């Protein structure tokens, strides 16, 4: 789901602070989050090595079994190994999350820069973006996926498109306020060309909020993927993702909760970590806060 950028807010998890080389102080919470996230990413990357079974191999006689030596987390309704599926599922989920974040940030950055600086383009672009924003993202996503078929690409596209206007707005607002800064006027007075000012003076201002926004997009994309799967409009079930493992497992929620629990746990831990890191990044990157801290 879309998380919006929020200005200054600080989340310092525990008082025990650890000093980083650059003098940044990071709470223990974000450290744990970073560790968890690293572990999840690694486990997804090395899923083929870690998974005890082929995540697609079915055994009709071993449906919905509990944990055993062969199947550490038990099996799903097709008799596939849950653990292998959850591990492998991370690959696509993370791919969708990171992919959606990168694509929407890059596209949004380009549009936002142009829109923030050129008044004429701005009016048109912002109307377009308003319209894109007005279409509820989940509905748009379901529609796109249902109409284009449930490939990873349509899911990613469906998640990315509604995020773009938010990024554009963010970038634009940064550019709008930054271009009033005297140093931008100074650059103009020094004869720097518009593209140069845009890219060298204004763009760097957007990076910090974009990194933060990117983490939120990443988290919300992973979550949206799960919801699309739940609504029957996700990635093909043959490719395991946390979302469709849960979607398939939801029927058995009361009988075999582990089918939802494990992917759900991974998903929630992952999103929780990303959000936490996003919050931390926002605090570290927000110059206003630094100033207030003295």
């Amino acid at each position, binding site marked *: 789901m879309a998380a919006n950028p929020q200005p200054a807010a600080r989340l310092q998890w525990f008082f025990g602070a650890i000093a980083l080389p650059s003098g940044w102080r990071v709470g223990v919470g974000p450290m744990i989050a970073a560790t968890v996230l690293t572990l999840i990413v690694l486990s997804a990357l090395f899923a083929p090595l870690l998974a005890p079974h082929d995540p*697609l*191999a*079915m055994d*009709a*006689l071993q*449906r*919905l079994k509990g944990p055993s030596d062969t199947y550490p987390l038990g099996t799903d*309704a*097709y*008799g596939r190994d849950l653990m292998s599926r959850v591990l492998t599922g991370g690959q696509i989920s993370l791919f969708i999350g990171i992919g959606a974040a990168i694509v929407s940030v890059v596209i949004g950055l380009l549009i936002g820069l142009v829109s923030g600086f050129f008044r004429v383009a701005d009016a048109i672009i912002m109307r377009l973006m308003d319209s894109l924003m007005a279409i509820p993202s989940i509905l748009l996503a379901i529609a796109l996926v*249902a109409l284009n*078929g*449930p490939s990873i690409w349509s899911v990613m596209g469906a998640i990315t498109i509604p995020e773009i206007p938010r990024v554009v707005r963010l970038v634009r607002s940064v550019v709008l306020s930054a271009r009033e800064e005297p140093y931008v006027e100074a650059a103009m007075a020094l004869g720097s060309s518009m593209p140069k000012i845009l890219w060298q003076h204004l763009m760097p201002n957007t990076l910090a909020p974009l990194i933060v926004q990117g983490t939120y997009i990443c988290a919300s994309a992973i979550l949206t993927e799960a919801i699309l799967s739940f609504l*029957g*409009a*996700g*990635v*093909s*079930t*043959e490719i395991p993702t946390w979302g469709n493992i849960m979607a398939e497992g*939801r*029927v*058995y*929620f*009361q*009988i075999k909760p582990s089918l939802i629990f494990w992917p759900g746990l991974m998903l929630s831990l992952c999103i929780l970590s990303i959000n936490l890191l996003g919050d931390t990044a926002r605090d570290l990157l927000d110059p206003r806060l630094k100033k207030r801290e003295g």
Partner: protein
Amino acid sequence: EGKTITAVMHSGLRVLDPIITTAHITRNHGYMIYDVLIAVDENFKPQPQMADWTVSDDGLTYTFTLRDGLKFHDGAPVTAADAVASLKRWGKRDSGGQLIFDVTDSLEAGDDKTIVWKLKSPFGPLLDIVGKQSAVPPFIMPERVANTPAEEAITGYTGSGPFVFVQDEFQPGVSVTYKKFADYVPRNEPASWMAGGKKAMVDEVKWVTMPDAQTSINALLSGEIDYLEQVQIDLLPLLESSEDVSVETRDALGYQTMGRLNFKHPPFDNKKIRQAALMALSQEDVLGTLIGNPDYYKVCGAIFGCGTPLGDETGADTLISGGDTEGAKKLLEEAGYDNTPIVLMQPTDVISLAPQPVVAAQALRNAGFNVDMQAMDWQTLVTRRASQAKPAEGGWNVFFTNWMVPEISSPLISAMLNGRGDDAWFGWPKDDKIEELRAAFVAADTPEKQKEVASEIQKHTMDEVLYIPLGQYLMPQARSNKLTNMIPSPVPVFWNIEKAD
């Protein structure tokens, strides 16, 4: 304050025209509000319902006589003209109906009560088809409604059946309400499947849709609903501990699940490769994954279903014995399979259809097929299976579906046994032999002769791989113990049911 039965049906009612669609939920709706001329009993025998009939000795003239007291919900009497118009509209849509109308000389109302149907040549199974309970039974509507073109959906919902459709409370896909039709005159015979007296014992029946299987089970357990038409077998344990709820199999025949290959495009235009595909598959694997609990499925190689008069398992040995991967490999090799990818469509949103493709894909790959399984929702699949394009260009090679056993229990009804090429059912086999056999079946005038022909058809179907039967399964229903006397028919009907306080 009357008695109301709240039932969760297998899907939401959206289409209200029971002639235009084959959707089961619409058929069930049809049985609520419409009546039929004749109907089958539990022995598959047509019995009078709205009408009695006589057949001329040459088998060319059928005369139906409407019984007294029949009335539409708007109060108008049911006349022969209504029945004729309804039958004619039905004949344009239903495949069985089309067969009869191919040989029909005339169909007219003799007077207010008699319908005279004259044929050009004898058509043995006419009564079976007119009385069939599924895949579009000829429901009788008022003439004005029945005059709607067969391509357009009707807009008036006046029937003469035991329940009245409450237009104001209808929410497509959510809920539909039926009120008891006070003026309905049931037959005197006891109810037996679709035949016999249809006595409404409750004042109101409400069908609600629940998109979530667990929600509906929980709702049944907490007494919020009375009846659940289908319970997913894996979820049965949730219901077992409850004393207020019974789980039972209403319909002992159940469903047949099957695969269909596309005859128009390589590689399945090659008979050997079709045979290889059949050989690769194992019913046990499919059913085990689809249903799991062996109490609720049956390995069955009969294309007409096991437990039906025509059922016969000839030629299905590999299917019912666990598949023959090696044999399939050999056949593929002989056929010179060039590794053309086969597009296998998988609907992800229908629980009873999602596992078959997954299991099949695995089995086909094991046999050496290059499988391209494409996931989609059911509606996309429905759209796409109608496409005759090349598989790589939006067409397809294989899909799976389920039929209720009564819908495939005879070569006249079973859509997959049509061999008329482009006019045939999706997959479009051009197979003159099967058409000959079907004609022979129509011409067969005794059950024994029919059985003989049916057995030929079974053999031929398996050899040509017109379709691949993948076994039979049952869908249990669950009801509150307050409900009693439900008719154990394939179509869930709400007459006869009583509800305790």
